[in-house]
């Protein structure tokens, strides 16, 4: 009976893992990069060299206020993000339909920073949870998350007997299949707590999209055409009030939000709201203080209470990790990469087990070419995205769109290359060529950075060393895997 259960779980683990795994690798890899999204944006905007912990002055706040008022008069809906340890600039931003764009101010002097237009690290963040497909993409990501949880549970059932005794066992010198299985189990079991936590919280964050609180029948009824309320029309025509000095309001908000730092300010024609920073703690709240305009009088404090709200705040906080200090952020990153490695090794194992029996079948070849284009094509496109950012002229119009085009173009080329190689049954050739490309692009990243942005490398050495170092690490891993492929082929 137990063997039957294990066999059935094995089938479920293999197939559910492979189908979901192709997308899950992309979600995990970009999610791991999103841990450092702000730092990647700083790497991609070398013009912004404001050091961390630069003091915020009234001059800078006044400069931002006057720009906000000008934009409000023109009818734009803007908000202000305040300096933090990770992002030390004062940013006046608005949403352009794809991302938040706007003007960056130096918090010390109030001068605007002519930073290049780029998607920055937020590209990885939005790819991670939307797959660049909006709400539909988020639904797909959530479904993949649920399937991954099923895969993990079935995996635990399969290996339950050896889970603890074999926890640090890996036999790299054994047969290839045994070695890959050991590596899959080793990384999978050791990062299991993190993997379950990050998938579960991720599913919960957007659970409403696949498990709506409203009755399911309402999803299938045609959407009614919404007519704008008359009060909204009036609000749009109201002339925005001039803004009071923001420094005293920030001090009041900090006092009334239990000493938490302010993260950002939203503006309405007749009031402004100062929100607590997401970095204040593991509870990711939207607690805020409202002030009337133009006198800057405190109107009220909004906080959420109740055990359900607090639970959801912790779930959001744990997933987004915005409260995490630098060391914990690195641990998230490493654990995320280990999660990616677990899924990647699972994909390879799935193919290895079926190669002798089904290697000639077209379905197998499609599966293998998709695996190649995911495991090596995605890193190539990420690196191409970074190269494109540094190689395109800083003042070029539409350069952020070109960056995305470069990312997608590189990925399509990799998929085409893997498809062509698989049609001629030369999969090792596809792996080797694409691994070489990763080594070339990743290894060349520090050189490119030093040659194109020497001042930024000198001004912010830690950020540039870390990102260039990750590029070099990717190159080293790619070269090692290529070497193993060659030695196995001999």
């Amino acid at each position, binding site marked *: 009976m137990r063997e039957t259960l294990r066999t059935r779980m094995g089938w479920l683990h293999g197939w559910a893992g492979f189908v979901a795994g192709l997308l899950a690798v992309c979600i995990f890899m970009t999610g791991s990069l999103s841990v450092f999204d702000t730092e990647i944006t700083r790497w991609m905007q070398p013009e912004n060299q404001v050091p961390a912990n630069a003091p915020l002055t009234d001059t800078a706040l006044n400069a931002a206020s006057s720009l906000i008022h000008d934009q409000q008069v023109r009818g734009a809906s803007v908000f202000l993000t305040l300096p933090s340890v990770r992002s030390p600039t004062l940013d006046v931003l608005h949403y352009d339909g794809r991302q938040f764009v706007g003007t960056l101010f130096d918090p010390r002097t109030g001068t605007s920073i002519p930073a290049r237009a780029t998607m920055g690290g937020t590209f990885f963040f939005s790819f991670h949870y939307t797959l660049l497909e909006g709400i539909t993409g988020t639904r797909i990501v959530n479904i993949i998350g649920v399937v991954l949880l099923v895969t993990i549970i079935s995996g635990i059932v399969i290996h339950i007997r050896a889970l603890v005794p074999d926890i640090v*066992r890996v036999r790299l010198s054994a047969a290839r299949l045994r070695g890959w299985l050991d590596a899959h189990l080793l990384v999978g079991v050791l990062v299991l*707590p993190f993997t379950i936590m990050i998938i579960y919280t991720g599913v919960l964050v957007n659970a409403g999209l696949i498990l709506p609180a409203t009755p399911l029948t309402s999803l299938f009824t045609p959407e009614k055409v919404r007519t704008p309320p008359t009060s909204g029309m009036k609000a749009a025509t109201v002339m925005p009030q001039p803004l009071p000095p923001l420094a005293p309001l920030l001090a009041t908000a900090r006092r009334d939000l239990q000493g938490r730092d302010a993260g950002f300010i939203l503006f309405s024609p007749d009031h402004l709201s100062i929100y607590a920073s997401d970095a204040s703690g593991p509870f990711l709240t939207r607690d805020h203080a409202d002030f009337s305009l133009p006198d800057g009088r405190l109107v009220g404090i909004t906080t959420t209470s109740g055990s359900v709200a607090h639970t959801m705040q912790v779930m959001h906080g744990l997933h987004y990790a915005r409260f995490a200090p630098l060391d914990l952020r690195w641990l998230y990153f490493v654990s995320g990469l280990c999660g990616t490695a677990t899924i990647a090794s699972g994909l390879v194992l799935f193919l290895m087990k079926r190669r002798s029996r089904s290697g000639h079948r077209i379905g197998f070849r499609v599966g293998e070419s998709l695996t190649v284009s995911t495991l090596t094509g995605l890193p190539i496109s990420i690196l191409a995205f970074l190269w494109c950012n540094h190689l395109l002229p800083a003042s070029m119009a539409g350069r952020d769109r070109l960056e995305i085009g470069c990312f997608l173009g590189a990925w399509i080329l990799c998929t085409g290359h893997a498809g062509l190689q698989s049609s001629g049954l030369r999969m090792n050739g596809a792996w080797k060529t694409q691994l070489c490309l990763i080594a070339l692009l990743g290894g060349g990243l520090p050189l490119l950075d030093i040659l194109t942005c020497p001042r930024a490398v000198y001004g912010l050495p830690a950020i540039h060393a870390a990102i260039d170092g990750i590029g070099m690490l990717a190159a080293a891993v790619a070269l090692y895997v290529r070497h193993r492929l060659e030695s196995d082929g001999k």
Partner: protein
Amino acid sequence: MTFPAAFLLWLMAFSCHVRLHPLRYGVSPLGPHARHIAVTGRIVAPGVAWALSAWLDGVTGVLIWFASLSIAGLCVALCLASRRR
């Protein structure tokens, strides 16, 4: 501070675990007294690491405890694998 401490305690726990499975990991077997110490170390070290992490850093500490488990486990596994090769 929390991570190095938790990491070292997890290293200790995994080392004790390896010594308690001599056939599986290809190490020399322990005597009864040493075996008793290894069993104690395998249980106590993670507990001490948990108490230390949670006491020093709260929620962050708990996350660090799990992450140090993963990284210490990987380090021990890589050491064992390289020793065998």
